[in-house]
């Protein structure tokens, strides 16, 4: 369960994020909707634990993320999986190594990376560098990297922005599947109207009043 209360964020005097309170149950997969500049990515970073909001509280399964606590990088990375908009796979590592990197930093030495890539249909591409992969394959590697540590919360930033209709639909299904596989709550930041219908729950962000 994810609870967001009175979260605001400002850079200096400029308020960039002001979110109405919301609460999501474990399987209440949600789309964060809003035009660009509404603070979708900022909220996503707050939820990912890499951006401390100026005010407000965030709780994940009764564990407080903000405020007042200082969580270790390992703590948040083992609870939250993130798929950045540009994916950012490490170009010098193979697909498998990119997934293993996520295990390495939180000290998870199980061999789930290989199984996961196989389940995602990347059996043959396991040892290929990202530059040799297609956009869709790269996205699947990034998904595997985000869920390999079995997070409780899976975040994706604009996962369909560069995809055509068919691939966008497929990508969203894949995200649902990934969330289902790990039992994670899926939160997707998007301004893509094509995929909004797929989400039972939507949170709308409005441009913060300046």
């Amino acid at each position, binding site marked *: 369960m994810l609870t967001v209360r009175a979260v605001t964020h400002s850079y200096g005097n400029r308020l960039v994020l002001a979110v109405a309170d919301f609460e999501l149950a474990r399987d209440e997969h949600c789309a964060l909707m809003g035009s660009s500049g509404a603070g979708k990515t900022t909220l996503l970073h707050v939820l990912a634990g890499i951006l401390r909001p100026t005010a407000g509280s965030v709780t994940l399964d009764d564990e407080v993320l903000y405020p007042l606590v200082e969580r270790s990088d390992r703590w948040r*990375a083992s609870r939250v999986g993130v798929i*950045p908009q540009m994916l950012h796979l490490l170009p*010098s*590592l193979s697909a498998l190594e990119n997934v293993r990197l996520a295990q390495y930093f*939180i000290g998870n030495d199980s061999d789930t990376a290989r199984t996961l890539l196989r389940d995602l249909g990347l059996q043959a591409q396991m040892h290929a560098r990202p530059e040799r992969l297609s956009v869709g394959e790269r996205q699947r590697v990034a998904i595997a990297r985000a869920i390999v540590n079995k997070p409780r919360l899976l975040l994706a930033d604009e996962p369909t922005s560069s995809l055509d209709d068919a691939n966008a639909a497929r990508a969203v299904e894949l995200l649902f599947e990934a969330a289902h596989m790990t039992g994670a709550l899926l939160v997707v930041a998007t301004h893509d109207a094509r995929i909004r219908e797929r989400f039972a729950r939507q949170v709308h962000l409005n441009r913060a009043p300046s």
Partner: protein
Amino acid sequence: MNAWRLVVAQLLRKPLQTTLAVVLLALGIATLVFVVLIQGQLSRQMTRDAQGIDLVVGAKGSPLQLVLSAVYHVDVPTGNVALAAVDQLRANRLVAQVIPVSLGDNFRGFRIVGTEPALIENYGGRLAAGALWTAPMQAVLGAEVALTTGLSIASTFAGTHGLTEGGATHEESMYSVVGILTPTGTVLDRLVITDKSSVWRVHEGQPADADERAILLADREVTALLVRYASPLAAAIVPRQVNAENRLMAASPASELARLFAVVGVGINTMRVFAAVLIASSLLALFVTLYSALEERRYDIAVMRLLGASRGRIAGLMLFEAWLLALAAIILGLLIGLGAVAVVATRLAQARAFSVTAHVTPDLLWIGIVALMTSTIAALLPAWRAGRMDVAQTLAKG
């Protein structure tokens, strides 16, 4: 996945820059290794070769030349000394020992030294085989001579006139080998030692009659005398006494050596400065490599943070990267440096001059430690910046 694999993968992304940084640092280290090894070994060896010799007495000329010829056997003598000078010095109460040295011939570049057994004792030489000479024209070989020439006990050989190879051969007077010495690590290893009368016999030929024999006897000379003092007081008196003689000159190996090193030291220091400049510029290259990597890898770093790497972990990875580069450079530099020393060692051995060997000494450990420390310093700022990077801001930009 481990830190090793991760860092190697990152380094291989920029093979050219990585190689440049490693090669530059390796060259600096190699130069330092070369200077330290050669200088250390040469000075140790020259000190060892001068052991037990407080003063060299020879014909007037250059004192450095006298020492180089009579003690180190790398230069030509300044002239000869009348045999009478030996007895005269031996009678001096301030003198403990006088070892006469007669030079003139060589065998395949190794000098044949006419002297007394005291020379062998002075360097702690022990017989590996055979015995000392009991008659003229019997020779005892230094360890290196025996090894290089392949002569063994009872072998015979003829000396060649002059101190280097290529002179006329004294075919009519053959030496026979009676003893071979164990290695001493001194100049003794590179000498053919014989009784001083052998040298006279080779050069005098057979006298025709008793008169001629008498004339030859009166003219007998040696090349130089190696003197050991009986008391420290002698250092102040004996050289003056010797120099007062018309044809004699006294030279102290210790002070000549100090003068030589003062001159050679300029060259050595130049090489040291050169090595320091090389290392400094290689560290700059290392710094630039790491610093520019920061910019290129900012998404990699942000993603690693996102995946749970702490600031310290990121900084540590960067330091590890610098250490890995330094380690590669140390190994490469050591190999290049040792290779260069080996080349010089071969040349010196061919010239029958000093023996140096390419081997790892404790001094080299220091070079390694210094290289690791300085590369750490070069990596500190990039590592600190990498750790301080704002993850959310970086990811938001791209």
